[in-house]
């Protein structure tokens, strides 16, 4: 079983960290993983994205031409990546910032208003962690528990307070994704 996913957004949205947390957690669960950031040009500005592959087998290519899951954090990323999602795949979008309509019906779209959710949580910077929670829930590739454990190994969990906060962010993301999926199904 191999899962490929892409995380995309603005430079400042913690996109790379989302991928790292995901890959790290999977590794700790005994999976093979690769994490491939698109590295910034020698020239300033622009967007960021990364590709994570999680697999029970040896991973051939760390590149994903048709990822199973895509997380888009802003509009330009939607434009660029929405069409790449493999049929049957899942597209998670940050509905706080992304407003365009998605025209595909062969994939599942999960909108999560992560900025608002993070704001409610009291820490705007946790938006990306909220999204990872949503991803875990929507796709099932990782358990929220495993993520919570792995958090401590990253910058997101160095201080106990921050760790606690981010653990809650994961829960919130997961909860929200559950709701969104329920809505999707019922729609």
């Amino acid at each position, binding site marked *: 079983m191999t899962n490929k996913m892409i995380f995309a957004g603005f430079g400042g949205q913690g996109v790379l960290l989302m991928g790292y947390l995901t890959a790290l957690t999977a590794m700790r669960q005994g999976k093979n993983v690769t994490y491939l950031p698109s590295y910034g040009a*020698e*020239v*300033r*500005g622009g967007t960021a994205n990364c590709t994570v592959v999680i697999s029970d087998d040896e991973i051939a290519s760390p590149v994903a031409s048709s990822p199973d899951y895509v997380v888009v954090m802003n509009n330009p990323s939607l434009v660029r990546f929405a069409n790449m999602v493999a049929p049957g795949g899942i597209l998670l979008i940050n509905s706080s910032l992304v407003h365009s309509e998605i025209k595909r019906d062969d994939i599942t779209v999960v909108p999560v208003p992560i900025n608002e959710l993070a704001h409610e949580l009291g820490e705007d910077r946790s938006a990306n962690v909220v999204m990872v929670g949503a991803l875990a829930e929507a796709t099932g590739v990782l358990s929220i528990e495993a993520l919570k454990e792995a958090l401590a190994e990253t910058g997101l969990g160095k201080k106990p307070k921050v760790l606690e906060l981010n653990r809650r962010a994961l829960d919130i993301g997961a909860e929200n994704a559950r709701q969104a999926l329920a809505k999707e199904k019922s729609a």
Partner: protein
Amino acid sequence: MKKIFEAPKSLKPNLFHYCPGCGHSIIHRLVAEVIDELGIQERTIGVPPAGCAVLAYNYFDVDTGEAPHGRALAVATGLKRVLKDHVIFTYQGDGDIAAIGTAESIHAANRGEKITAIFVNNGTYGMTGGQMAPTTLPGMGSTTTPGGRDVARDGAPLDLTKMMAEAKGSVYLERVSVATPKGIRKAKKAIKKAFQVQLDGLGFALVEVLSPCPTNWKMDPVAAYEWTDKEMTKIFPVGVIKDITGYDKD
């Protein structure tokens, strides 16, 4: 109401790709204003560096030719030797002109090449993400000097412009800063003079411009400008370093 400030003609209408508050943007404008004022747009050729200004041709509306990292003044020498009546300027960062390009810079100055060099000293390797530059100040942070530049370990800042003063062919060397409105005005004057030196065929002219890099300094732009004005000038004091133009003092 009359428009009394607008963009110079020698700049293309493209939005700069530089970070918010980047000194490069201001310096670009000043160079373009000078080109406008001297009426030399049609015979000016720019040589941008490898550095944050590598895309300068997206902005300057003059002919431009790319130089390998550090070699702008050698490339410019080739250009100027062929195009004697043209105006050739290089636009180089501190890493470009004062580290990898040290030899080419010093020898172009020494030969007295009739070239105008704009040397943007931002104390860092902006383009590659903030490694130590030859001009990084003692104690200043960078991604290759853990704990900040330690003079004993990493060497001290290098004052290339002062070294160039020893080069016989250099005619006019001035250090300016774009960290204050007053500094910006002075910078423009110096840049204009450096172009005039070339138009008059006197020899090598260089303006070193202290220029904030908020991104790699990890400061907000206003703080970066203040730091440039207060701290950088301690190690790199602004002022004329060499002037044998014989122009009347103004």
